[in-house]
């Protein structure tokens, strides 16, 4: 009993922190409609800032606290509101979600840049020198007591703010109807700002209170927030009292698992993964909403042609062959994974691009594919690649279960929780037996990965594996293009556009979702296996949730519905990192920030870069003269490079300059061929409606 009470106090103290952080999350979400994935990262940054001021620079604790809670946190909240989220305020939920995921990724990278992760940064608990309180058999430290008192004060203050003040009423009204609030003289922007400031301050309080009890690690602190997310989901992201209740459930569960879980090698991970598992379950049990109607803010899905896709597939393979002939072994190891990661990124196209299902666990599923390959193909048996596809597809089908009930932010959360469960528990398991079959994961260290063996011909060299990965990416891209043009592809887009209409035509949401999740996971699994082959040896960390965020962000930037996105993501993810590292090694830390920065710039190109690139390069592809000149020029440069007359830089720059010049020429040539005039009343009927038409009509009407 005594032990039960002791663990109860520990649980309540942790719960208090989750309640504080979770209430900040709920406050921001209810007022602004933005689910802030970076909420935990704001707490993490505050904890680091507090350490820097109080320990690093020796400021007195009260002064450091005041500086963080009253100056830095509010300033950060305002900055995020103005710079990051206001530009996407009128865009869809997915766009706002991407911005906060970019912020999460960026803040972790920035913290790792500023504070070297290899140095320990201990923080002492508050009032650590004071004697603990003894309440009967239970001992409560002053830090624990302080945490609980702060949580109660936060609850009272929030109740007072929302129910007894004008700004609180404005904030509640903003949730219901933003435009209407504006009409009644209230200021929704002010309500937003207050929510961001308060939300960030609450995250900061939580971060500072929890940091002394765990290691000061950027990713770990940012993801401790999963527990607070779970608490917020208990409150259905709306109710503060239920959020507090959820926090108590999560905090006590963690504490009692620590105390009472049997000590064996399989269960420590379960304790770490428990909040994520609970989040997953809470999302599953979330009340079922009605079928969604039409979302009017969706971006069009580009329609590829099979001829164009075949050419594109050829370009991928040619690109890899050229790289294989001009890169030395070290560079081939560095750049080789771009095609494998391209396959992982390609998995977003059917899932997120066509079907609109946001998944933050594709790299984790790629990890499953890598494990399957590593364990089943020690000698590179090619059939194991099929097994990697099948097992990953099975895992994907499991994730589709919550996807039946969830969408948007809830689905993103569920997939993030799934990734965290894999990271913290499944990937850390030692080998075990299930139904008489011995299953090994990462063996708690690393898994050796062999290259595939085709009829005695073993692919082992990095260059060979790079071309093989490119071939797989080319085939995958062709397959996804065919899918887009197929009956199933049309159905996926239809399902995304209007679930209600899809269901009332007789379409099965279950079948479509399970199939697309399985297919997409299968593709990611193959990508993971290829990635592993390229790396030769893989660990669980290479497939964790945080590592997957930049790939997701670049996939969004590229354009989730574009078939060419696989190659784009692979190239854009690895290309700049290694190029900049080679040219200017001091940029090492800055390049880690690039995906996040690019994600934040996403608001300017919500339709994605790849469709725009396709549009701008099409004139060159249509012009036989320009295309021949490009291929000829490139062939000359390539031969010069193979003959060691020029270096890689000349090959790269020369090709780029030639291509850009020929593109400009081809575009100019096409522009001169004037299109037939269509009378204004037939715009949108005899020819597609264009964005600029609206302005032309407005000007015409205004001009009388």
């Amino acid at each position, binding site marked *: 009993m005594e032990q039960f009470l002791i663990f109860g106090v520990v649980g309540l103290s942790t719960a208090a922190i989750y309640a504080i952080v979770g209430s900040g999350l709920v406050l921001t979400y209810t007022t602004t409609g933005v689910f802030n994935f970076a909420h935990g990262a704001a707490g993490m940054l505050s904890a680091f800032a507090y350490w820097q001021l109080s320990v690093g620079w020796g400021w007195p604790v009260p002064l450091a606290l005041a500086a963080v809670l009253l100056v830095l946190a509010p300033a950060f909240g305002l900055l995020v509101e103005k710079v990051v989220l206001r530009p996407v305020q009128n865009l869809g939920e997915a766009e706002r979600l991407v911005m906060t995921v970019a912020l999460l990724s960026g803040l972790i990278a920035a913290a790792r840049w500023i504070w070297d992760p290899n140095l320990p940064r201990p923080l002492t608990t508050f009032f650590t020198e004071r004697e603990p309180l003894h309440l009967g058999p239970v001992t409560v430290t002053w830090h624990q007591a302080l945490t609980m008192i702060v949580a109660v004060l936060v609850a009272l203050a929030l109740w007072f703010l929302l129910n007894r003040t004008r700004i609180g009423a404005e904030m509640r009204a903003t949730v219901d109807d933003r435009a209407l609030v504006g009409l009644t003289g209230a200021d929704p922007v002010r309500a937003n700002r207050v929510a961001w400031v308060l939300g960030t301050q609450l995250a900061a309080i939580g971060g500072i209170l929890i940091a002394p009890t765990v290691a000061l690690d950027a990713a770990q602190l940012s993801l401790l927030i999963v527990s607070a997310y779970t608490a917020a989901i208990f409150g259905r992201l709306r109710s503060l009292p239920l959020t507090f209740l959820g926090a108590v459930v999560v905090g006590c569960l963690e504490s009692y698992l620590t105390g009472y879980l049997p000590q064996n090698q399989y269960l420590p991970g379960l304790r770490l993964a428990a909040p994520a598992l609970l989040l997953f379950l809470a999302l599953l049990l979330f009340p079922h909403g*009605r*079928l969604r*109607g*039409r979302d*009017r803010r*969706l*971006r*069009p*899905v580009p329609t590829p042609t099979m001829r164009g896709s075949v050419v594109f597939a050829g370009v991928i393979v040619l690109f890899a062959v050229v790289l294989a002939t001009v890169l030395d072994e070290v560079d081939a190891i560095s750049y080789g994974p771009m095609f494998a990661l391209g396959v992982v990124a390609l998995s977003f196209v059917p899932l997120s691009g066509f079907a609109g299902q946001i998944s933050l666990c594709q790299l984790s599923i790629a990890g499953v594919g890598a494990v399957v390959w590593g364990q089943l193909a020690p000698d590179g048996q090619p059939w194991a690649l099929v097994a990697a596809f099948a097992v990953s597809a099975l895992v994907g089908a499991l994730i589709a279960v919550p996807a039946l009930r969830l969408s948007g932010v809830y689905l993103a959360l569920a997939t993030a929780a799934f990734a965290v469960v894999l990271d913290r528990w499944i990937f850390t398991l030692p080998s075990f037996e299930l139904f008489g079959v011995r299953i090994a994961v990462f063996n708690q260290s690393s898994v050796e990965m062999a290259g595939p063996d085709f009829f005695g011909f073993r692919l082992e060299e990095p260059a060979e594996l790079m071309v093989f990965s490119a071939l797989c990416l080319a085939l995958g891209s062709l397959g996804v293009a065919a899918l887009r043009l197929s*009956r199933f592809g*049309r*159905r996926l*887009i*239809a399902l*995304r*556009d*209007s679930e*209600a*209409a*899809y*269901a*009332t*035509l*007789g*379409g*099965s*949401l279950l079948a479509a979702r399970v199939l697309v999740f399985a297919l997409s996971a299968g593709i990611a699994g193959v990508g993971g296996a290829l990635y592993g082959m390229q790396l030769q040896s893989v660990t669980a960390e290479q497939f964790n949730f945080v590592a997957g965020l930049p790939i997701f962000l670049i996939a969004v930037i590229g354009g989730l519905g574009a078939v060419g996105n696989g190659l784009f993501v692979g190239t854009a993810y690895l290309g700049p990192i290694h190029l900049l590292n080679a040219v200017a090694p001091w940029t090492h830390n800055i390049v880690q920030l690039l995906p996040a920065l690019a994600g934040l710039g996403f608001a300017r190109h919500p339709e994605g870069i790849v469709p725009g690139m396709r549009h701008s390069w099409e004139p060159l592809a249509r012009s036989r003269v320009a295309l021949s000149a490009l291929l000829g020029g490139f062939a000359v440069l390539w031969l010069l490079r193979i003959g060691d007359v020029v270096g890689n830089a000349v090959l790269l720059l020369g090709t780029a300059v030639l291509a850009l010049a020929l593109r400009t020429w081809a575009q100019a040539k096409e522009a001169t061929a004037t299109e037939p005039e269509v009378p204004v009343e037939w715009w*949108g*009927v*005899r020819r*597609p*409606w264009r964005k600029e038409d609206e302005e032309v009509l407005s000007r015409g009407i205004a001009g009388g």
Partner: protein
Amino acid sequence: MGSLEVSDVTVVFGGHRALDGVALDAEPGQVTGLIGPNGAGKSTLFDVVSGLRRPSSGRVVLDGRDVTRMGPARRARRGLARTFQRLELFGRLTVRDNLLVAAEMGPDRRLAGHAVTGILDRIGLHHVADTCADELSTGAARLVEVGRAMAVRPKLLLLDEPAAGQDGEETERFAALLRSLADDGTTVVLVEHDMGLVMSVCDRLHVLDLGRIIASGPPEEVRRDRAVLAAYLGESPVEES
């Protein structure tokens, strides 16, 4: 076949009874009109019949089979199709693909392409077949929704304000289309505010007001019903001359 029988359907939102013991029927080969002022509960009733909303009580019977507990997809496979008051097109697909998605879910998916061409002829939208549905005018978009519902070859077709946004000539053509659908044996239930269209095309009318059916019968009879006049024109019904 495709007869519809709704009995004693009640839908409660919080404390408000959006539908209160509604009973109506519709027969194959007929166009049945469902009219009533805004907020009367017409679209809610369509949601209940198509399975998008579960009633608090009551039954929906399609072709003699109780479908009250079935989801929308199962009802659709039993021959029910509908359009929506608030357009629910697949906006990122072309008009042709909108129809194709539906035709491929119909009874003969191998002939889906031919069926789509035939429907494009019937609704007169060949010229925008390859236009993205998001780029259509409201009138054209409503026609595409009707065409999409036709593409699954339904036995029972629920049309929610399909003629909104159409001019006089288009409405006349649309009336002819509705008649031809009924003549083919389809049960058509029409919610529409264009009284000219309703009176010219419907074989039978049900009038819904404040969640209750206040009159049913042939259009000429309903037109003279005092309760209907009161619902449309206010508490003091216009005396017949």
